[in-house]
């Protein structure tokens, strides 16, 4: 009984609550600009609208054009199942599940890039090349963050890694993971989600030719990825394991809300970085996570 | 408390100079306060006061051994300064006069500092006070020199602060209560934590060595001495380098008490020889006679380090060399200033025949050059001879060979430049320019006096001076 309840709760959070986040971000951006902005539930309406539409399919594209978004969504869902949700834990937990998480995220990216290249258009190819090259540096930062958490707690299982706080390196880890979050989810300063100039896009241009249900899968998957990174960030910084279940759930929800509002604020106040500067920012994020690792190593050795 | 007068009187003079309204009469404050300072310092030299071991500032044996020559150099340069500032009366000299007096007060404090922190504060303050003096000429080249001085000197100060902290922590780690006077640190002796002491020695040597101008931290010297007014160069070369040297000696005593004296001596020997080598090589190549003086200063700082590495006898010789070098360099800088003004350029390419245009300054310059390259019977010959004797007695034959070789190369380099500008027939433009800057008594007497003092020091080194240097050695090396 509790198993079904737990599974239902997990599905609700990941499937139903995830699309709320982009809505909150857009609302924050609108408020900062002095507008009312679109409704917070806008993405739900968009997903419902897209689901009802048909697909425009190129005759030259292989089935990979449809399989790509679907496989990406399934990979992201799998990753979401692995991510512990505060007191509720994760659906599946074993030693080394953090590596599987990273690989699933990489698989999702690969499928999206494959689907983008299927169109044979120059724009998508350019977007795919940019996205993948930035991902190299972003993944290095994620690995460094994971290493720092693992050295801190002495384990490679997500549940154990994320329950205590990150200790002395918490601020560094938070800064590094936040930057990675912005990079992986295509937010300013790496990529402007509101731009309409294809030459300046990274992620949006990759999905330029998708339509209908595959596009809905891509959008939903992106919101799940955002929620995933936000949950990771919050749990890495806050000492989840020391709070009561209700307190931990509340702290997690509040933390995710703070991160979302933070993303909105950053998007409002920063401009997109010139492409040649992006490696610098990502290297900084990597080094910040590395310094968190250093602090954890020195702290545990003392 | 008379020793505090040495610090307070010049600082009061600096404040008075800053407030003095008349640009023409302000320069007279320099020799006025300089005279008071000389009287007090020689009074204390003859009748040294008792210094409490725990005092932070005191006219101890080391200060007694070197401060009088700094004071004397300042007075004679101050007398020159009156004439110099009259020639340059178009520039406001408020900052110049007050900062020079402030430097004198700070140098006195630095020489008498028996506390690690006080020593650092005073030397940093001297560096900061020197900056406006360096670009008194206001040319773009002067700014460039000032900027390099500030960056390199500032880094040196930062490193010496770090070294001071390392030494303080060495004491703390060894169970001390944090008394950072040199006496307390030496008393703690072997209790000091060795790794920290070595780190401190390295950092303090580099930091204070930057102020001294030993290689490889000498890069600011040619530019700074080349572009600054020569009176500033004389005081820097004779006074500021001395306080840095006393700082290194005091630290060396602590390091020796901690048991790492052999390491300290080795590093001093290597740095000293390296400085002499670098200076000699650059002297062979330079074409600017003011930069030549800077390289000569680097060489003599190398000689001082070399001497300090040779134990008690070597340190006594080095202290003798502080006196002879300070007086001779003063003569060289001041006469070089006269020549530079009359010639209009510092470079060998533009300047010739100065023996015709400025005969007296040229004569002093040539004599000073011979003195500084160790011609008997001037002072530097005897002090360098004493260093060589100490080196041979200590068995450092290879190092002595390098020492003498560098002196020879330096001699070649300096004679090349000096005779290049002094001999020959001057250009018409130089003759014209020289007429504007006549050789008055005010600009000839001071360098002549300094040269004479250097000669007197060599011929008749008074016993009281030798006794003062030995007393300083006893203070630095209590257990020979």
């Amino acid at each position: 009984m509790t198993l079904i309840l737990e599974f239902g709760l997990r599905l609700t959070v990941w499937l139903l609550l995830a699309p709320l986040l982009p809505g909150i971000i857009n609302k924050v951006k609108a408020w900062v600009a002095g507008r009312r902005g679109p409704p917070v539930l806008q993405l739900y309406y968009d997903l419902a609208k897209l689901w009802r539409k048909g697909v425009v399919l190129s005759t030259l594209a292989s089935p990979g054009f449809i399989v790509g978004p679907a496989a990406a969504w399934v990979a992201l869902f799998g990753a979401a199942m692995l991510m512990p949700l505060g007191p509720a834990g994760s659906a599946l937990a074993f030693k080394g599940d953090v590596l599987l998480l990273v690989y699933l995220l990489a698989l999702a990216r690969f499928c999206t890039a494959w689907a983008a290249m299927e169109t044979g258009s120059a724009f998508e190819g350019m977007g795919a090349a940019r996205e993948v090259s930035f991902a190299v540096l972003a993944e290095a930062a994620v690995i460094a963050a994971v290493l720092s958490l693992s050295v801190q707690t002495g384990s490679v299982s997500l549940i154990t890694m994320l329950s205590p706080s990150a200790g002395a390196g918490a601020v560094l880890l938070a800064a590094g993971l936040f930057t990675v979050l912005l990079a992986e989810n295509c937010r300013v300063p790496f990529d402007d989600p509101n731009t309409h100039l294809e030459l300046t896009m990274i992620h949006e241009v990759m999905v330029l030719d998708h339509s209908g249900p595959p596009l809905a899968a891509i959008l939903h998957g992106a919101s799940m990825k955002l929620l995933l990174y936000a949950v990771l960030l919050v749990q890495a910084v806050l000492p989840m394991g020391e709070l009561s279940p209700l307190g931990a759930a509340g702290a997690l929800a509040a933390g995710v809300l703070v991160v979302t509002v933070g993303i909105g604020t950053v998007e409002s106040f920063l401009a997109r970085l010139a492409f040649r500067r992006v490696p610098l920012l990502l290297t900084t994020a990597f080094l910040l996570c590395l310094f968190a690792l250093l602090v954890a190593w020195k702290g545990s050795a003392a | 408390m008379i020793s505090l007068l040495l610090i307070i009187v010049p600082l009061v003079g600096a404040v008075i100079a800053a407030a003095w309204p008349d640009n023409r009469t302000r320069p007279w404050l320099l020799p006025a306060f300089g005279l008071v300072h000389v009287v007090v310092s020689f009074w204390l030299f003859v009748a040294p006061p008792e210094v409490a071991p725990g005092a932070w500032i005191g006219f101890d044996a080391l200060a007694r051994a070197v401060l009088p020559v700094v004071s004397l150099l300042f007075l004679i340069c101050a007398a020159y300064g009156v004439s110099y500032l009259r020639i340059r009366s178009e520039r406001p000299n408020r900052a110049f006069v007050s900062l020079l007096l402030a430097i004198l007060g700070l140098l006195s404090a630095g020489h008498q500092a028996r506390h690690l922190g006080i020593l650092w504060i005073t030397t940093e303050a001297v560096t900061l006070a020197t900056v406006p003096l360096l670009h008194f000429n206001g040319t773009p080249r002067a700014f460039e020199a000032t900027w390099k001085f500030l960056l390199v000197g500032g880094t040196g100060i930062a490193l010496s602060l770090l070294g001071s902290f390392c030494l303080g922590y060495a004491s703390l780690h060894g169970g001390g209560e944090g008394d950072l006077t040199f006496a307390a640190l030496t008393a703690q002796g072997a209790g000091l934590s060795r790794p920290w002491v070595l780190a401190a020695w390295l950092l303090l040597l580099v930091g204070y060595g930057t102020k001294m101008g030993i290689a490889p931290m000498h890069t600011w010297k040619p530019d700074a001495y080349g572009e600054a007014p020569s009176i500033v160069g004389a005081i820097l070369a004779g006074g500021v380098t001395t306080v840095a040297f006393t700082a290194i000696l005091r630290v060396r005593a602590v390091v020796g008490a901690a048991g790492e004296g052999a390491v300290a001596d080795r590093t001093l020997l290597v740095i000293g020889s390296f400085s002499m080598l670098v200076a000699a090589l650059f002297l062979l190549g330079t074409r600017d006679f003011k930069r030549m003086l800077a390289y000569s200063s680097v060489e003599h700082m190398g000689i001082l380090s070399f001497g300090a590495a040779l134990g008690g006898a070597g340190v006594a010789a080095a202290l003798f060399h502080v006196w002879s070098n300070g007086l001779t360099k003063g003569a060289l800088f001041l006469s070089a200033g006269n020549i530079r003004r009359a010639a209009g350029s510092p470079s060998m390419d533009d300047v010739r025949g100065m023996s015709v245009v400025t005969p007296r300054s040229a004569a002093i310059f040539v004599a000073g050059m011979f003195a500084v390259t160790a011609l008997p019977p001037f002072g530097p010959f005897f002090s360098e001879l004493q260093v060589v004797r100490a080196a041979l007695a200590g068995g450092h034959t290879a190092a002595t060979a390098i020492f003498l070789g560098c002196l020879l190369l330096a001699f070649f380099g300096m004679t090349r430049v000096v005779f290049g500008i002094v001999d020959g027939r001057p250009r018409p433009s130089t003759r014209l320019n020289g007429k504007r800057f006549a050789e008055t008594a005010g600009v000839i007497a001071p360098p002549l006096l300094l040269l004479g003092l250097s000669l007197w020091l060599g011929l008749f080194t008074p016993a009281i001076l030798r006794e003062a240097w030995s007393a300083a050695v006893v203070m630095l090396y209590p257990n020979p």
Partner: protein
Amino acid sequence: MSPGILNILIGVAMGLNLIALASSRLPSLIRAMSLQGVVLGMMPLFMGHESLDWRVAAVAVATMVGKGVIIPSLLRRAMRAANIEREIEPFLGYVPSMMVGAGGTIAAVALARALPLLPEHAETLLVPGAIASILTGFILLIGRVKAISQVCGYLILENGIYLFGLLLIHSTPLLVESGILLDVTVGVFVIGIIVDRIQRAFDSLDTRKLTTLRE
């Protein structure tokens, strides 16, 4: 003394070193440097034994005000007078200088084990943090082109030395701490004046123009 809070603050200072190495805009460099000064100024407050000595608190407040407000405003004034906002492509590129800085920090953490520490300092990152900041300051001093960037590098160097000095906060009399702060402030003031004069003489703060003096 609470090593936990201290280590968090030192970690933030190390992160600010990175940000300083990565900044290409002068305002962000000045901000990183001043923020680091404020963070470091706070530290003496967490190093007290039982009660807070008012003298220590006074020095901490003075340091925070000096490094966080006065010195950055002097630098910003010089920057506005010189009309520059951006660093020119430096001698040592941004990513290489960050790599060197990070490598140096890692080496500092490793090498700091060679220096024996008193038990009350043993768990803190004071020594590696100090060495890391000093190295960052050197990289900025040597690698950057604009005069103001070099000055910021010098101030980060002084931050590192101040961090090191915190080891001695209870034994070193406050005389020396205050003297240091005073000297730094006066030094920056002097530097500001020189920078202004350089700007007027050369009409630029590009230190590559300061190359006429040579043999």
